[in-house]
């Protein structure tokens, strides 16, 4: 496949890995922001070819993982109402709420459906005028244009039976929260490539300057990631803290102006609670008042919900780059994709799920590398 295969080329990857090994003179800790990038790192073993002391920690960029427990419980309350068709991306169905997940609700008779695109939920609303179709609009800036488009189209087509339960989150405030935390270890960022296709990268300049941290907007294939790591490390070694764009085939400095305009039309910035991290000011989107008739939170008037997190799950520390999945005593034993304790074990972009999928739960903490060789280092 054009624009994929060439960025998975082993010879190119090894050349970049060699250049990284040559460039590094001391230990550095980098964070990849996106869950998709975490998945690539673990799947292709990108971290295994890096020199000793160059560590990748995994960021909060998994929207399924950071959607708050309150919002998931609210989704369950809405999905349980009679006459509702509750639509969601597939990843959300197995995320544990306080009492089970959406899949269990479905088995109990709720009409819960997986859609590929929010626009499919609009089509469903047009085809089922007697039902209330609710879409669970989660995601980072990447997903904001399609979600905004769905709401905008529903309003234009006067589909009053379509609404969205919005739990959007934004990357720059999360990076600020990570860099401001007392335990922060992150010295450089592989920035979120697909978020920046929408938003561009100008909003990262103040972050790089304020915290003196290099930010390299990076793609999602192994060659992209290795080049992003090389660019970040070369900045660190030179004492620089600049914003650079590795993913220039998809990302423009200003992003997609049409998408940004539509987001501005439909959404407004609000405070948002992140699962495992806590409340971050001005870190999310909600619907503007002009779109209130499509706001599921207003339509269904769900009361305040008291929630109960699993006491054992360390996903909050994993999402902030403070711990790795295998630092958790429950990882791969009491917590697996079949019986997840936390959302990072559910989503394919969650760090715990990625570690599990590629065999890292088989390795003990002490002898991880040796054992990985025995099991083939992943798939």
């Amino acid at each position: 496949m054009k624009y994929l295969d060439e960025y998975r080329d082993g010879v190119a990857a090894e050349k970049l890995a060699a250049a990284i090994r040559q460039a590094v003179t001391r230990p550095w800790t980098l964070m990849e922001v996106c869950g998709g990038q975490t998945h690539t790192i673990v799947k292709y073993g990108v971290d295994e070819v890096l020199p000793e002391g160059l560590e990748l920690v995994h960021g909060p960029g998994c929207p399924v993982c950071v959607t708050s427990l309150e919002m998931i419980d609210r989704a369950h309350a809405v999905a349980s109402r009679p006459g509702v068709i509750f639509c969601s991306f597939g990843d959300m169905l197995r995320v544990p709420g306080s009492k089970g997940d959406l899949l269990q609700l479905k088995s109990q008779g709720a009409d819960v459906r997986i859609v590929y695109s929010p626009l499919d939920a609009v089509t469903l609303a047009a085809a089922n005028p007697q039902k209330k179709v609710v879409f669970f609009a989660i995601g980072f800036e990447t997903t904001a244009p399609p979600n905004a488009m769905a709401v905008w189209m529903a309003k234009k087509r006067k589909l009053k039976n379509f609404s969205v339960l919005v739990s959007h989150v934004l990357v720059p405030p999360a990076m600020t929260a990570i860099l401001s935390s007392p335990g922060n270890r992150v010295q450089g960022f592989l920035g979120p490539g697909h978020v920046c296709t929408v938003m561009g990268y100008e909003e990262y300049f103040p972050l790089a300057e304020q915290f003196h941290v290099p930010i390299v907007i990076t793609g999602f294939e192994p060659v992209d990631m290795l080049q992003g790591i090389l660019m970040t490390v070369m900045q660190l070694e030179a004492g620089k803290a600049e914003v650079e764009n590795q993913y220039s085939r998809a990302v423009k400095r200003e992003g997609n102006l049409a998408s940004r305009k539509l987001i501005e039309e439909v959404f407004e910035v609000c405070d948002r609670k992140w699962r495992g991290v806590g409340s971050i000011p001005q870190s999310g989107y909600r619907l503007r008042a002009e779109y209130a008739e499509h706001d599921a939170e207003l339509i269904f008037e769900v009361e305040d919900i008291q929630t109960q997190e699993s006491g054992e799950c360390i996903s909050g520390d994993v999402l902030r780059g403070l711990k790795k999945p295998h630092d958790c005593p429950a990882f791969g034993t009491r917590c697996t994709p079949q019986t997840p304790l936390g959302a990072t074990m559910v989503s394919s972009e969650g760090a715990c799920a990625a570690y599990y999928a590629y065999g890292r739960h088989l390795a003990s903490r002490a002898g991880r590398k040796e054992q990985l060789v025995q099991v083939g280092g992943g798939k």
Partner: protein
Amino acid sequence: MCLGIPGKVVKTFQEHDVLMGKVDFSGVVKQVCLEHVPQVKIGQYVLVHVGFALSQIDEAEAQRVFDFLKGMNQLDELEAQESEPVDLPSPNVRAVAARDGPA
């Protein structure tokens, strides 16, 4: 979630006054909203996320990483000839100093 997959536009059409299209992902053809990449032509590639094209792939920019690698190869050859260490070229594709601020 932020998965974006490149695919080739094979058809464009309007639906409810919105630009839509058919996009080919290695043989799997899906309907995609193209409203925010209105300049795209049939045969060109777009980056698609949940049925929505976020950007058009820039063919010239897509070559940059391979141009960089080619530069590294040439340096390797030079090094072999001269047996002296040579500095790597900057891998920087579009370096923009933070202090430069917005364009």
